[in-house]
């Protein structure tokens, strides 16, 4: 028997959208669960209409551009060509379902009967407003798992409040922890909680599957995007509690372990930077050797790790005077070869085009799509000795075009015939 992926045989009804929802169920799909992604054309995921878009063969290759990126709805020729959406939903089955239509609700009930879990990240009351609070889901399928992730969660006075990734990071204190001590906190350059909340979402579903298998009962998890963020604030909460002191931003310096140099240094070229982190005397000696033992390295103010930590302003300036005319990857390699922790600060192009370690781990996986040419998506960061989790999921394909799998799901799975499906489509149900 060929071994199967870990979650083979698990079926999840997936209402998620944006990154904060869709990335969690994507992990489940990567681990081998069958994800049925339910959408309705009247209110599509905003990421379906957000740039950048796949270039169609007749349009020629995309122009390289450097920008902050961003999310904004565009008038688009097709809702099936957005890069973000097509990464988030890789490997999932896609169907159209109008949850406001009575016949849509009936179809949903039939699907729930066949499913292990239901996942959404709508505002808290949405599924309940459609007639499907956990109690109703449980009535339809007594051992169903329901994990919902509104911004602040379902229980509590902020249940109708909403978040994006930055909102969740702000309220929990993550944003306040990143920045220079003498300036405002710059926070993260992207939506950290759009990536981290989904890890907890996938954990919740997998833990709940285990709990269900043990108890035979359904499991409801009231997750949120903001809730997991507190667990990522490091020692700030116990430090405040124990010592009454807050975390004070230290820029790129190491606040809690003696490490120096510990910084990000300018290299040759525009926006070219190298990180160096010397936590041991051996690191420092190797660095000094690599620099050709310049005179300043022998000065008493840099004689010990303690001294170097105490004189980091001077040290950082001198380090940068050495790095600034050098190419960052050559320098990284030169330093790493002699055992100095050094790293080029990589942008997306570097990570995709150059990083040999990601390539070695086959991190990028090419998938097929019914409308756009085949394209690369991110794979799974870990390597398994058993079958490797894959973004091709159970469809063996990239993201579905809108409602691509209606006949697979409604026909093969629920047993509707062609005429019934045509009628449902005409009535605005599927």
């Amino acid at each position, binding site marked *: 028997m060929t071994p199967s992926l870990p979650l083979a045989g698990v079926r999840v009804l997936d209402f998620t959208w944006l990154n904060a929802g869709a990335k969690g169920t994507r992990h489940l799909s990567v681990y081998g669960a069958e994800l049925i992604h339910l959408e309705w054309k009247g209110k599509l995921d905003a990421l379906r209409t957000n740039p950048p878009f796949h270039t169609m063969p007749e349009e020629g290759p995309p122009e390289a551009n450097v920008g902050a*990126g961003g999310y904004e709805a565009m008038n688009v020729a097709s809702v099936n060509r957005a890069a973000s959406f097509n990464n988030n939903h890789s490997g999932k089955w896609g169907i159209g379902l109008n949850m406001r239509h009575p016949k849509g609700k009936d179809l949903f009930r039939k699907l729930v009967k066949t499913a292990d879990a239901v996942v959404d990240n709508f505002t808290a009351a949405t599924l309940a407003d459609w007639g499907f609070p956990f109690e109703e889901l449980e009535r339809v399928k007594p051992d169903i798992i329901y994990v919902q992730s509104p911004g602040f969660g379902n229980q509590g006075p902020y249940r109708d409040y909403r978040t994006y990734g930055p909102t969740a990071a702000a309220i929990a204190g993550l944003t306040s922890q990143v920045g220079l001590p003498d300036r405002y906190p710059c926070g993260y350059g992207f939506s950290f909680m759009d990536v981290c909340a989904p890890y907890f979402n996938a954990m919740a579903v997998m833990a709940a599957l285990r709990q269900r298998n043990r108890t035979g009962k359904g499991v409801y998890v009231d997750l949120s995007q903001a809730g997991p963020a507190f667990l990522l604030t490091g020692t700030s909460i116990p430090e405040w509690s124990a010592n009454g002191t807050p975390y004070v931003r230290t820029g790129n310096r190491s606040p809690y372990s003696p490490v120096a140099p510990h910084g*990000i240094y300018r290299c040759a070229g525009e926006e070219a930077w190298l990180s160096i982190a010397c936590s041991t005397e051996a690191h420092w000696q190797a660095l000094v050797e690599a620099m050709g033992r310049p005179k300043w390295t022998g000065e008493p103010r840099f004689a010990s790790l303690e001294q170097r930590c105490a004189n980091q302003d001077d040290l950082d300036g001198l380090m940068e005077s050495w790095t600034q005319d050098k190419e960052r990857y050559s320098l990284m390699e030169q330093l790493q070869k002699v055992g100095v922790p050094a*790293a080029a600060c990589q942008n997306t192009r570097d990570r995709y085009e150059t990083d040999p370690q990601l390539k070695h781990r086959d991190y990028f996986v090419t998938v097929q799509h019914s409308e756009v040419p085949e394209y690369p998506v991110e794979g799974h960061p870990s390597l398994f000795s058993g079958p490797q989790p894959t973004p091709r999921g159970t469809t063996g394909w990239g993201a579905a075009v809108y409602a691509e799998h209606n006949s697979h799901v409604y026909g093969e799975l629920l047993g509707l015939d062609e005429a019934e499906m045509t009628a449902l489509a005409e009535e605005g149900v599927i």
Partner: protein
Amino acid sequence: MEPLDINGLASPLEGIRVIELADARGEFCGRLLGNLGAQVVKVEPPGGSSSREIGPFYEDTEGPERSIYWWQYNIGKQGVTLDASKPEGLDLLGKLLDTADVLIESYGPGGLEKMGLGWEALHKRNPRLIVLSVSDFGLDGPWSDYQGSDLIALSLGGLVMTAGYPPAPDGHYDTPPIAPQMHQSWHLVGCIGTMDILAAMASRDHSGLGQRIDLSLHAAANNCTENHLSWYMIGGMISARKPQFPDLFTGDGKYMQVMLGLFRDEWDRVVALYDKYDMAEDLKDPKYADPTYRRQPAVREHIDTVTQTFLATHNAEDIFHIAQANGVIWAPIREPHESFDDPHIGPRGNFTELEHPEIGRSITYAHSPWVSQQMPWRTGPRAPRVGEHNDSVYGELGLSADDLASLKAVGAI
């Protein structure tokens, strides 16, 4: 073994035993598995783990029993000491692993193999054992022998290059990119490792067999930048440095995570909010509805000025509730402890107090990410002291007090 489940409810990983033979990089994973109900045995060298040297420290005084870092990441674990470089210690480690469902280790490429506990040997010895190997770059590959750290992983993973301050007025950056703090690559490894172990356990339920998982800080950090990789791979877009919010302040001098129209209907809500207070100025002009127009530097500056005027008339916490009540998705830039008394966050179980009898007081920690009657997040007790559970854990393996004394005499525990 004394029951650790103080919530009185069985947890999903009840009965699962985790041996954590890892340094700080693997500790968050062990903690999360404990929160899900696993019994986690943290194995330290006889003097204590190197992560006890990471600050901050209780009352700012260093010491192996005073590291708040250690406390935070080892909640709920049982602590034993063991020196695997001694034959007696290695033998004892083998016995521990025979009782384990999961091993979390961070010896790096070839490390376990050198001890005679490589994957093949472990799999033969305990076929159900799941091994999570946490390393800087992975167990093989061109960079596998490179030196890593949290900063190194975040730099290679792309988190660094997107974070920081805008360029100086001349268009050149006068500051480096700014790395996230609080060892986020260790958190990422903890989250991904926990998912992986849950998946491997599901696999084991079918096959009866464990497997080895090779997870690196480098790969974990690369998994983390939203869809930025897809933006490049599909659209050729290289994400540039961008602060999370504009440098504007509220009436009480705090910062606010404002979002000025990510999506189409959002901009309208922001303008409606300003208008409610007669502070929309000219922003109701339809030309502002076009995001391309709003992105022009001079226009953006004008929007920031209008926003600054609005923010300055209220306190941050008031703006939070006013904005959200009007569908505007903003939040104040709080420090983590500023949510302790929040009427929503505290009652959802985001914080918990654990007793530290040795210092005669309790300490507050971050706690449950979710609310669930059927699957509550398990808590505490506080992190173990060095060797605190040697007697109970090794006693269960059948070792007598005399055995333990002789192991101690040779420095094996």
